[in-house]
């Protein structure tokens, strides 16, 4: 077994591009679910909108990338309004149903033949829409150390991506510790009580939906730019549920939990995969048990087992407070 290689792969993934994408998706969900109690099961839709919004305007209309970012933010605000206006006055479950459906609608529209010309159908969009971004890359070569390895483009994405995560987390930390954040947490506990104190709950839930959605769509920006391509099927329900996994791993309603959750998530996935792969190729794991082609599935099975263990032994997540979780039972 090449432990140095395993370490390098695992550590690079732990702070890598995917971790950033999932952290951003989960930060948005933390706003929705952790702080406001909104069940948004369509976070993938926000990421898809972010991703397509940077690719399509640049490729099809020659719009500068910086304006495409603004278009992406604008589009995700519109998407949040479309989801929120009909559902936020209703019971919590309606938002859950509508968001899960809406995210699928986004994906189906993106991959439909009708809009093939702009959205690329099921193949998605591949092209150099990120060239304005990579033109700013000061690194001529990548990073190649025994424990971390990124090519030049990925290094640039990782550095800008973590900067984005840091700025968003900092602003979020201020907001959730303000009276505004208190109001959000109060809505999570009991909307009717908050209404009786003269607060317009609907307006605040809409703000939460928009803010969390926009943060999610910035995850879509990173997703699209890092790959220089957008594939509709990457934005399915699995993405949303992985983002929830990340959030719950870290512990909901804690500012740092999406970051740590995403790091643990990708650490485990890549670590398990590398161990299995090396085990199989070095004949430490017999062929009849796991074949090379099964490694991809089996890592998710083991991941699932690990998550179950976490929920049993530490249901509050890494940062959560067990006492606080117990209060959830509405004594």
């Amino acid at each position, binding site marked *: 077994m090449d432990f140095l290689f395993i370490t390098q792969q695992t550590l690079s993934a732990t702070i890598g591009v995917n971790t950033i994408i999932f952290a951003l998706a989960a930060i948005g969900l933390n706003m929705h679910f952790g702080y406001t109690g909104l069940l948004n099961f369509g976070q993938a839709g926000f990421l898809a909108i972010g991703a397509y919004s940077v690719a399509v305007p640049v490729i099809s209309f020659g719009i500068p990338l910086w304006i495409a970012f603004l278009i992406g933010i604008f589009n995700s605000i519109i998407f949040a309004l479309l989801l929120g206006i009909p559902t936020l006055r209703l019971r919590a479950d309606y938002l859950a149903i509508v968001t899960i459906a809406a995210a699928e609608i986004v994906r189906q529209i993106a991959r439909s033949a009708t809009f093939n010309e702009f959205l690329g159908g099921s193949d998605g969009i591949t092209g150099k829409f990120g060239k304005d971004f990579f033109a700013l890359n000061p690194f001529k070569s990548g990073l190649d150390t025994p424990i971390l390895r990124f090519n030049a483009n990925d290094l640039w994405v990782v550095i800008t991506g973590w900067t984005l995560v840091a700025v968003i987390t900092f*602003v979020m930390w*201020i*907001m959730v510790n*303000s*009276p*505004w*954040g*208190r*109001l959000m*947490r*109060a809505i*999570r*506990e*009991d909307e*009717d*009580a*908050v*209404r*009786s*104190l*003269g*607060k*317009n*709950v609907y307006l605040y839930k809409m*703000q939460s939906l928009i*803010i969390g959605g926009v943060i999610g769509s910035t995850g879509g920006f990173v997703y699209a730019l890092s790959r220089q391509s957008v594939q509709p099927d990457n934005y399915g329900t699995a993405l949303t549920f992985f983002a929830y996994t990340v959030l719950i791993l870290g512990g909901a309603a804690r500012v740092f939990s999406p970051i740590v959750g995403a790091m643990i998530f990708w650490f485990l996935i890549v670590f398990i995969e590398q161990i299995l792969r090396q085990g199989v190729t070095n004949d430490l794991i017999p062929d009849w048990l796991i074949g090379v082609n099964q490694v991809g599935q089996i890592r998710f099975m083991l991941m699932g087992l690990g998550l179950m263990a976490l929920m049993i032994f530490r249901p509050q997540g890494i940062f959560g407070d067990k*006492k*606080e979780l117990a*209060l*959830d039972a*509405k*004594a």
Partner: protein
Amino acid sequence: MQKPKSADANFALTTSPTPGSAKSDPILIADKITRQFGGLTAVNVDHLEIQRGSITALIGPNGAGKTTFFNLLTGYDSPNSGTWSFNGKNLNGIPPHKVARLGMVRTFQLTKALYRLTVIENMALGARNQKGESVLRSVFPWIWRAQEAEIRARATEILRNFKLLEKQDDFAAALSGGQRKLLEMARALMVEPEMIMLDEPMAGVNPALKQSLLEHIKELRTEGKTVLFVEHDMDMVHEISDWVIVMAQGEVIAEGTPASVMGNEQVIAAYLGAHHNEDLSANLEGA
């Protein structure tokens, strides 16, 4: 027993003790309000006025429609028919948060403490016009810090009165049932309402604390506030209310001073008809 200090101190003496009677200075007027749940008419109030600056009790057997009536008045439920106004402003179709902003704040029979907020956070939430509750200004703490300090100071004062100060940093979920009732009432006061509507404020509160709570409620009247409360505890009704309204099967069947209402045969019959509670009837007859 302390004499009422309402705007019109004689209102209890000069008002006719008949259901739906006119008050000299009504703050709340309800007209022909009905609410049906399927075939059941839960509320059917023909006319009702609440005197400004008074403490009015709303009593009646279980299922009489008191809570439903509260829900209708505060916008949590909509009536099948009827109109009502607060301070002369029509409240039909006004959502709960706007009702509260107009100065009519209610509490809930099933307590709604915000469990995973601390006691002091529950309190601070009640304050009006908070700069830090605006999404944009929340990002700049120096804009709202001073106001937040004032709010907390006021919250601390009220918590001290309600004997909850030692609990201020505990989660509301860690309070006992009675303490949650107290917290909810204290939080409603943070809104600085003109009229406060309490749905069974004394349920589960121990006798010693009950006494001091009664004093706080009387104090509200001294400050010129109007109190409307639902209560099954007849001692409390008798001790602090200027006026009592009795509901049974959705209708107002009697109103008047505590003494006159509790001697009313119709009222006793309504209670006995609803459930044979010896204690209660003894209470009523003793009055």
